[in-house]
């Protein structure tokens, strides 16, 4: 196996890149809501990425990566023509889709990525699709244009007011509802803390719906249980029973704490990566001088 080739890559926002990767078997099978697990190289870890879009005829899948740790940081050094060692999928269940009528999706940061295929699919199922996209600031917002192409209405907000309204996605959701808008269903994705707040707002506003969870995963096939989440008091394996669960039943607090389990090691890995990079760079420079 020589890996899976990157055929296009570009920057979407600060520290956020997209990749189109040749993975024909995944491209053929993927449905909205499903993800892949990738491993960059022989020493790499297995990490999940939502499949944002596919071009099945060309055998391509589109992934969006925000650099937050060692692996995602290293991923930013991969470009068109490079290959990543492993891509497996499509994993997880496809989003349960029906015609709810008025659907709202609430995206925080890169949470826009998993929601893009879902809004497309929801639109295809006849829904009126409304989107709220939030980010910390303008330079971190992604996919807004693509959401606008599909959705009936898109509202954006930033923490610092640099784009759209100033405030949180939950502020937008509550004020939209206060205008008299009745949402029949909601789907949210993004940082866990943001999904937690969104789920609370959904509960207040009596909007049932789903949250697309992002726990730590290893195999992605139900074999390890690293991805355990508690939903309505029951343990579920997010990689095979999710990644979407009843937003009103998820124990977000537990998920936040579980996602922090390797924080110390993540910092260490990043440090190691940077110092290793510096060492190699220095060695290369020294060689160049000789």
């Amino acid at each position, binding site marked *: 196996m020589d890996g899976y080739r990157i055929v296009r890559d570009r920057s979407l926002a600060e520290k956020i890149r997209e990749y189109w990767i040749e993975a024909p078997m995944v491209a053929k099978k993927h449905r909205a809501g499903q993800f892949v697990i990738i491993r960059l190289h022989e*020493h*790499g870890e297995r990490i999940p990425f939502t499949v944002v879009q596919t071009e099945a005829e060309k055998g391509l899948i589109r992934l969006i990566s925000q650099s937050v740790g060692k692996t995602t940081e290293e991923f930013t050094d991969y470009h068109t023509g490079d290959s990543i060692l492993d891509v*497996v999928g*499509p994993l997880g269940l496809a989003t349960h889709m029906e015609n709810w009528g008025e659907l709202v999706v609430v995206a925080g940061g890169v949470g826009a990525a998993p929601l893009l295929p879902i809004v497309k699919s929801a639109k295809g199922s006849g829904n009126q699709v409304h989107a709220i996209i939030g980010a910390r600031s303008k330079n971190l917002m992604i996919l807004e244009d693509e959401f606008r192409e599909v959705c009936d209405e898109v509202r954006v907000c930033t923490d610092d007011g640099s784009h759209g309204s100033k405030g949180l996605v939950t502020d937008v959701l509550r004020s939209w509802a206060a205008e008299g808008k009745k949402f029949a269903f909601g789907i949210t994705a993004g940082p866990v803390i943001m999904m937690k707040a969104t789920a609370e707002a959904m509960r207040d506003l009596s909007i049932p719906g789903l949250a697309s969870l992002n726990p730590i995963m290893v195999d992605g*096939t139900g074999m390890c249980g690293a991805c355990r989440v508690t939903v309505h008091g029951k343990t579920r394996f997010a990689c095979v029973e999710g990644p979407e669960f009843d937003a009103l039943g998820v124990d977000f607090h537990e998920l936040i704490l579980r996602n922090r389990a390797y924080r110390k090691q993540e910092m260490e890995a990043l440090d*190691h990566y940077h110092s290793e990079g510096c060492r190699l760079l220095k060695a290369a420079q020294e060689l160049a001088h000789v």
Partner: protein
Amino acid sequence: MSEQKRNLKLHPPRVPMPEVAPEERIKGFMEVPLGYTEEQARLEAERCLDCKNPKCVAGCPVNIDIPKFLKEIREGRYEDAARTLRETNSLPAICGRVCPQEEQCEARCIEGIKHDPVAVGNLERWVADWEREHGAIPLPEIPEPTGYKVAIVGSGPAGLTVAGDLAKLGHDVTVFEALHRPAGVLAYGIPEFRLPRMIVNSEIDYITRLGVKFVFNVVVGVTVTLDELFAEGYHTIFIGTGAGLPKMMNVPGENCVGVFSANEFLTRVNLLGASKFPEYDTPILDSRHTVVVGGGNTAMDAARIAKRLNGQKVSLVYRRSIDELPARKEEVHHAQAEGIEFNLLCNPTEVLGDENHIITGIRCVRMALGEPDDSGRRRPEPIPGSEFVLDCDAVVVAIGNSPNPILTKATPDLEVTKWGTLKIDADTGATSKSGVYAGGDIVSGAATVILAMGAGRTAAAAMHRYMMGLPRPLRQMAS
């Protein structure tokens, strides 16, 4: 020495297996048993009584001709001994290391009735190692391609056996594996200090040289279905997907940070190199006291790995007594020698965590053995009021695995039992779906390497007969 002149009345003691000392071996992942020298192997083989009616052969799930290969060792005909092993066992270097011989061949050994049984496992290992170290394992003569295509789902010992057997018969074999590396439990489950990667790799290499193709990162049922494989031109399919779904304890607090399934713990270390973090990217928690729950091979492996991560304190919690520990005896001894504390006759009731949901301990209750249960073992029952807490910062749950339902759920025409295992015809391994065969843990539930191989062997023979009864493939007729 000629066979006639052997003095069998001396009953010399069994040649002990040389091992790395516990203090030394817990510093790393080096293999613990060092293997016999040639002299030791000859000496041990001398102990065989060469019984007229050898019971050991019947005790071996694949019926290796044990007296024959021991005789070949005695006569210095090591290549012949290797060939004898390979006649019925395609993975001898692996079985010599991981089979529970004390329950199989060695349990039936006549010499073992009054004295120590002959160390068949150690000798099997020695021959297989000798073969590997003396040049590549010779390839059998492979007949002309038959033109039939076989898909194997899962690359554990069951799948590898079928792949090897059918490739040797001239079929075109492709193995589809969900993970990024082959060999199933042999790669992600059993640690290096019991089964060095090099041994597994050389077996994979042999199977590859037989012409078998491997495709990784394919979760059959999801990435591709069985019907799609048939549509792609495969004539028959073998399912050897194992029992990869971890059982959890279902006690409060089990989702605290620091509680792992054995599968996760083992996979991080064995498959992903977490013991070499940060050189490898996969981390493992840096704990001070790990409690492993369970008493099988998986529990012993997890405990011994935990010990090797940083020399920490490691305790085992098992609900029955030492006599019921299902792990291989050798592994129990190794674990004890390595300083693993055994808490027998106790069972977890709760995982305790702090305000950050980080594990701080595990509450257990003491157990007493009551009446025998269905398995014939005495049923452990909690002693009221006997709860106690073990302070710890990691728990590994190793209480068993069941079949992963991904493939069976995606294939409604595959009949399953209420345990989620596949229903097969015992003589052929045929499932309820035409052209589809199965064997190994996916049929038996979590069992052993040798049983998985034996099941693979049965299925391979039936699959061969099935294919040869099909109309000749067009490709073949054209040529």
